[in-house]
């Protein structure tokens, strides 16, 4: 195959995925339609994830005014925000609740897009950008967890970084050094300390949000260029214009959801769900307290790690990651019915591990 042919194939691939001729107001705004059918709820999921991101950015910027990223002052500054800053507690709780909602809806968005077969040609790059966005969202959750610098924050981060390091033993040759280098880069010193906090802070408030903004831009532009996917096997009997009809409905859902977040932030402080000794400031000289767990959205990985050999979990996770990236090609010919069953199985697994992980763990260990 000549280089001209390869170049031509690549150019054709990108031309189809980035139809620049549609980069105009008429195509992206005036003519964009949304199919109306029984799976239409799936079209709201991406917008909801975006809305929670907006809450995250807003509340995060407010928290930046008072938060001090030093090991001596981080916990004190969080305590100050909670107890002395006007509406500080509500803002911090909104940040915490909204982060959980954002991850939840990002997962629902991914699973529903999979079930609706929204990844097929020409939407492969939209899908891959979405998967990367999900990973960045998880990374934001992981890095943000350390910032309050309390017992659970530091100890859970240590466990997470150790798990990352341990993957090196299962990689061949030079690759085996990579996880250790990554851990050293993020940790920055012999143990989790000031340098780690500074780097996690930089990752959480600058690097990851920038990466997320770039990928989100690509994702949203592609969604506008290609329009909403069909979602079901038959052509939808009805379609409605995205602007203004669907957009106004989207805004109504956002408003209702905002009330839910506000209600929860005001009435149920997020810290309620943790044992109080884990909320104490981190003591470098103290013993590791019991019950150290990651946030609920990592339970799907945490409980298998507790129950199964590390290599098995690593193999499973790596397979899932590869499958996620190759989904547009692996499931190109699968029927929507098959995809729905797979999506249901994945949802059942995630729900079981998140809600009943502890009981399953106790049952198996007994």
């Amino acid at each position: 195959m000549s280089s001209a042919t390869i170049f031509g194939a690549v150019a054709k691939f990108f031309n189809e995925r980035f139809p620049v001729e549609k980069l105009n107001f008429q195509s992206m705004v005036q003519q964009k339609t949304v199919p109306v059918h029984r799976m239409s709820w799936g079209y709201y999921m991406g917008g909801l994830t975006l809305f929670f991101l907006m809450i995250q950015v807003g509340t995060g910027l407010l928290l930046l005014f008072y938060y001090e990223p030093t090991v001596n002052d981080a916990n004190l500054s969080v305590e100050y925000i909670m107890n002395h800053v006007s509406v500080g507690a509500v803002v911090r709780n909104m940040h915490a609740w909204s982060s959980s909602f954002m991850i939840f809806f990002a997962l629902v968005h991914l699973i529903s897009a999979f079930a609706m077969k929204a990844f097929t040609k020409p939407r492969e790059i939209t899908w891959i950008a979405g998967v990367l966005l999900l990973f960045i969202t998880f990374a934001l959750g992981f890095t943000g967890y350390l910032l309050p610098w309390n017992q659970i924050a530091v100890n859970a981060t240590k466990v997470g970084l150790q798990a990352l390091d341990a993957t090196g033993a299962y990689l061949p040759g030079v690759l085996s050094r990579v996880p250790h280098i990554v851990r050293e880069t993020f940790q920055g010193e012999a143990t989790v300390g000031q340098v780690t906090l500074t780097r996690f802070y930089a990752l959480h408030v600058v690097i990851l949000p920038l990466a997320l903004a770039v990928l989100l831009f690509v994702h949203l532009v592609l969604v506008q260029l290609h329009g909403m996917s069909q979602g079901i096997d038959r052509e939808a009997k009805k379609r409605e214009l995205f602007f203004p009809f669907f957009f106004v409905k989207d805004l109504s859902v956002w408003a209702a959801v905002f009330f839910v977040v506000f209600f929860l932030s005001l009435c149920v402080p997020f810290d309620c769900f943790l044992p109080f000794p884990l909320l104490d400031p981190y003591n470098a000289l103290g013993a590791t307290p019991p019950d150290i767990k990651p946030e609920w959205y990592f339970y799907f990985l945490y409980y298998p790690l507790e129950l199964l050999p590390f290599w098995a979990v690593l193999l499973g996770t790596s397979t899932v990651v590869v499958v996620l990236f190759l989904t547009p090609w692996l499931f190109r010919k699968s029927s929507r019915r098959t995809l729905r069953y797979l999506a249901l199985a994945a949802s059942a697994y995630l729900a079981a591990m998140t809600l009943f992980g502890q009981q399953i763990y106790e049952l198996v260990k007994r």
Partner: protein
Amino acid sequence: MWLVLKMIAFAAARSGVLCVIAWLSFVTPAGSYPQYQTFVEKHSGRTVNCSMCHVNDNGPVGDGGGQIGSLSAAEMTRLNQARAAMQPGQNVDSPILNKFGNQIIKKLGRANFLQTVSDPGQLGIALGDRDDLDGDGIPDSREFLDGTDPLNKFHGDPWLMLKNNMLRYKVHLLLAAVSIGLAVYGLKEIYSGFVLAKAEVERDGLNEKDQAENACQHGKKEENP
């Protein structure tokens, strides 16, 4: 006469018991009562540690902050005063106890407190449900039983927090609900407006099309009379 003698004998016996308890409390390591931690963890299913009642997470024994080994002379005096507070209602300011720990001794007295050591669940009952040191709306006794922090107003049983805060912030919630309700209503009206506008545009379009077709047919008739 018998009654007076009985009362004297009872008072003497009670004082004797109190003296023995007081003596025991001085010679035994102060405040090492893991029974409470065990009970609360079993009762609530939550992990707790000594910092529920003590200044130090690891309890009163040791050389760390808030532990007996690190106390100054003045603090030792305060500790001994607290140890001597056998009756309820005495102000105590023990340097090894936090606000909740001191409140327990003040409320019950040391004698009554020590009687609950063998049955820690009784402490929750003895504390009653009037005190709420952190002001989160959940009584301290309930926080003790639930294994939540009685000194942190953002920590408590989630359901109770929800119930109490809904009542506490009912005006805020109502205002938020009304404003968001109005916003949703406004969006609904905007949506209806767009639907009407679209229908009008389509109708106009149809009318124009009809007129154009009529004009066309009329023209054809004129051409071919």
